[in-house]
């Protein structure tokens, strides 16, 4: 989902930056408030960022014979709500743009929008939605993290399609081309991201009940589930 440096025309780069900026500012404010009001969750916030740091560093092979990487953005969105991930994801993407020449500064806004905004919102929405339907927590978390990951890559395909429409079939044709590159490669990796996110949530349920209760991350939780 990293659009390389300079690979979006200036107008597109500027628009995506303008779209992403308010989300990042809101995320920074939310993170700031969290640290003041609930300082005991600070370390968990850092750990959620760390999870995204690890997962986006691991380029994994896929069944298509290509490599790609997960995003790790679902976990923080599930625990803290989607807005803080705009900040944490930006830090990850900035690290990669500056030190790894992976992604870029001109495309930072577009990449933040896909990985740190849309992915987390999709993950958060799915968690809340499936919990309302009384899905088991592990199923909710798995679907949230997995489909948040897929959504990120769908947005990247859309951004590239808008910038580079196919001469014959237009934006739609171009989108099919880009999603055809990303989606089959990403699918097994999104499943892996879902599985690993469930593992972390399982561990948090075991060892971090105080923080989870504080954050009210899983409102449908019954006391029975917490004890087991």
């Amino acid at each position, binding site marked *: 989902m990293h*659009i*390389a*440096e*300079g*690979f979006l025309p*200036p107008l597109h780069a500027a628009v995506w930056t303008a779209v992403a900026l308010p989300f990042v500012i809101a995320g920074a404010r939310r993170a700031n408030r969290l640290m003041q009001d609930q300082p005991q969750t600070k*370390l*968990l916030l850092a*750990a959620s*960022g*760390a*999870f*995204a*740091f*690890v997962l*986006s*560093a*691991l*380029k*994994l*092979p*896929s*069944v*298509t*014979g*290509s*490599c*790609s990487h997960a995003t790790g953005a679902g976990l923080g969105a599930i625990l803290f709500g989607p807005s803080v991930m705009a900040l944490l994801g930006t830090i990850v993407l900035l690290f990669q*743009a*500056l*030190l*790894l*020449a992976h992604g*870029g*500064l*001109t495309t930072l806004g577009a990449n933040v929008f896909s990985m740190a905004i849309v992915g987390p919102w999709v993950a958060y929405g799915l968690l809340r939605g499936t919990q309302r339907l009384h899905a088991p927590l592990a199923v909710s978390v798995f679907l949230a993290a997995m489909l948040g990951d897929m959504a990120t890559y769908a947005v*990247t395909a859309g951004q*590239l399609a808008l910038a*580079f*429409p*196919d*001469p014959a079939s237009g934006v739609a044709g*171009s989108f099919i*081309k880009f999603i055809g*590159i*990303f989606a089959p*490669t*990403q699918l*097994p990796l999104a499943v*892996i991201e879902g*599985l*690993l996110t469930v*593992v972390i949530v*399982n*561990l*948090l349920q*075991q*060892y*971090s*009940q105080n923080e989870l209760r504080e954050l009210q991350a899983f409102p449908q939780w019954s006391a029975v589930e917490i004890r087991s």
Partner: protein
Amino acid sequence: MNRHNLGLIAIAVVLVVISLIMGGRQEGAEFAGADGQAMAAVATLQPDYQPWFSPIWQPPSGEVEGLLFALQAALGTGLLGYYLGLRRGQSQSRARQPDRVDAGD
């Protein structure tokens, strides 16, 4: 780490191994990055497009790039492991607390 989690991690590992085997059988499989393939597709859609900005700094070699990616993963894993280890220890010492109070009397 309970059995449930070990099972989930095992499935993830199996998925990577299956990907390596199945992916390796694909025609022209080189395990290149999907991001790079998408940028190559840009060149076929709009052959005259020139990236108008280039990275301000690039790792001087694949080795250095590998180092930085490993560093990124190591920093993340280190922090995550520290957090989980700390909370595990705290919840265990909480669980032992009643015994200690009794022993102190």
